[in-house]
């Protein structure tokens, strides 16, 4: 017990998130908000409203994920023939044409990663809600992973943007972005925000409370 150092929270201290200035935490968490005396950023002990924000964003991402996958992300018009592809049908088409590496890449970036991210965030949120004490280290690692891989999903969007911009040969071939692409971009962006608004320290707070009870 004595080995465990006191946490900043116990000492009513908080570091400014912008300039890392050590400040005294505001007395009343529901009272007036603290402002960093040096840089003027908000000083909070935990990200404010973290759980609610994350939940809201995750929920929004779930909702938009449905149209993102069901609606066409891209319409290729070549020789007057329009062909709309959803993400999955695009992957299928890539497999059919033998482009395995690209198919895998697109599948990973567009299907696996967003789904994994959403599920992981949901898992973290639920575990925090349930005050789970299970393996906080792994959960924190999971969170870090989510933050890192999140932007990879934008590969698809970048690819479509480039195609739309490049392939505008009027009658021979044009590529149009579909509404699915917009939804998909929204999903990726919203999950990035959701991951950001989640405060991983919440995972550890439970353990600290438990320590108090001991």
């Amino acid at each position, binding site marked *: 017990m004595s080995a465990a150092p006191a946490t900043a929270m116990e000492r009513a201290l908080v570091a400014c998130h912008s300039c890392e200035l050590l400040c005294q935490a505001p007395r009343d968490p529901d009272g007036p908000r603290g402002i960093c005396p040096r840089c003027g950023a908000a000083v909070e002990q935990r990200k404010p409203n973290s759980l609610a924000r994350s939940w809201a964003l995750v929920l929004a991402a779930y909702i938009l994920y449905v149209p993102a996958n069901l609606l066409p992300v891209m319409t290729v018009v070549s020789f007057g023939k329009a062909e709309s592809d959803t993400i999955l049908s695009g992957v299928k088409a890539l497999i059919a044409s033998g482009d395995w590496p690209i198919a895998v890449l697109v599948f990973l970036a567009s299907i696996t990663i967003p789904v994994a991210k959403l599920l992981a965030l949901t898992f973290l949120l639920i575990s925090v809600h349930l005050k789970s004490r299970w393996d906080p280290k792994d959960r924190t690692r999971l969170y870090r992973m989510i933050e890192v891989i999140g932007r990879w999903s934008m590969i698809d969007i970048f690819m479509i943007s480039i195609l739309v911009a490049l392939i505008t040969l009027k009658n021979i071939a044009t590529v149009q972005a579909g*509404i699915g692409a917009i939804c998909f971009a929204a999903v990726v962006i919203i999950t990035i925000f959701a991951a950001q608004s989640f405060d991983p320290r919440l995972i550890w707070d439970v353990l600290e409370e438990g320590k108090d009870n001991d």
Partner: protein
Amino acid sequence: MTESEAKQPPRASAPKVHPRSHGRFSIVWLIPLGAALVGGWLAYRTISEQGPSVTIAFETADGLEAGKTKILFKGLQAGIVDAVHATEDLSSVVVYATLIKELKPHLNDGVRFWVVRPEISLTRVSGLDTLVSGDFIAFQPGTGTPTRTFKGLDKPPVEAGDAKHRKFVLRTETLGSLDRGSPVLYRGVTVGEVSGYTLPDDDKPLTVDIVVHDPHHKLVRENTRFWNASGIKFNMGDLFDASLEVESLKSLLEGGIAFANPAEPGPAAKPGTAFALLDEKPAKPRSAKDGLALVLKSANLRSVKAGDPILYREFQVGTVVEVGLDAEATSVDLKIVIEPDYAALVETNTVFWNASGINASFSLFSGASIDIESLRALLDGGIAFATPDQGGRAVKPGAVFTLYDRPKEEWRAWAPHIRLHKDSPTGTGAAAKSDSGAGAKSDTGTVSESPVPGDSQATGAARDGGDAAATELSGLPTSVTLPGHVTTAVLESQLRDLGYANIGAIEKSGAIIHLHADWQGKPLKLRIDSRDGAIQATGR
């Protein structure tokens, strides 16, 4: 704990405070709400744009590709094939397709689907665009009870889409070289096509469905005759009369059906009327208008057949139209028609004899005599006739004569002077007898050469045949034959020949002639186009 408190860092800045805006409802929840709204809107839009799903059964899925094959209606995309599956018993395939939502109210069991594939035959190339774009399924609306399951056709329905075209049914024993798409010809003009045929299970005749396109369907009357105009007809009827008959090169290649109307076309045929399909072109339809119709009675047929010539001085002046037994089977009735130009040759005391074959008579005292009317008559058969020099009167159409087996010697000596009017423009009994004809009142008798008004009396003899002809008309005459130079008298006599009576004052305005006349007791107002002789009659 005190120990840890002691470790409080010396420099912990006190943060400034800032009032917190506090609500029970965090603004962040607007994001999923917005997402839900957007998602809901997208879902609504997608679902509302989603057309009806249909299943179509086809014999084969050749050229059909899920997600690629389109359903086209008049060249517009009306849907797309979602999936193609074989039926459970593997007997056919079922195509699942989504149509555009506009077609939703038009889906009923009258709708037709068929696969359009490139088709290249001797006479036509169609569906070439499918070589590039792939086969597609064509859609044709119809009427019936709403349904979502359809049976696709193997071949396109010919009357694709146009209700103005008219369908008729022909019955025939054999199809010959006819096929779907074979042309229907009227005087060599393609006016329609064969849309299909059905082979009945039993021995009943085949039914061939034809479609006659819009303006031409009026040509099909209730008494129209259809015949199979496929291929080449080579008639080696006799030594002198080999003929090769081809309706058109197109019909030679892919078969065809031709039709023609008799001289007096009946009322327009209703859609779906059934006709018999004749094997060959019928003999030129004959009617009283075409000449003087007579009946010959004979004990035996003696190799006479329809189409045999009627000979006067071995010159053909008429034709045997029909042979058959009379009502009581006591004799053979031959219906013959004498060409209008020669109708005057027949009088009430004319004798007819059978000129077919060889009459050989052997007698001990006079030796053998062989009597052949003509080589042609020998081969063809035929009927000859002669008219005495004196005492005959003009005959009415339908008059009955006896057909003798052989002529008497003196018949051949008869040589009456009968004036023929071969230049007659009417073609209806315009012949007058100059020397002794009781029916003739004038020796001029011409129609075209009587420009003096009031001279219509001169045509009295000519009218004998014409009036009678008119009484046999079943319908109002619709045209009058006019010579290049029309005079009032000519017109009057022509109209009288056609059966009009009580002809009133004639008014001419440009090429159109207006007049009043009675026809079969009905007062009519006539409008005659002098350029083509067309008559339009309206009640008065």
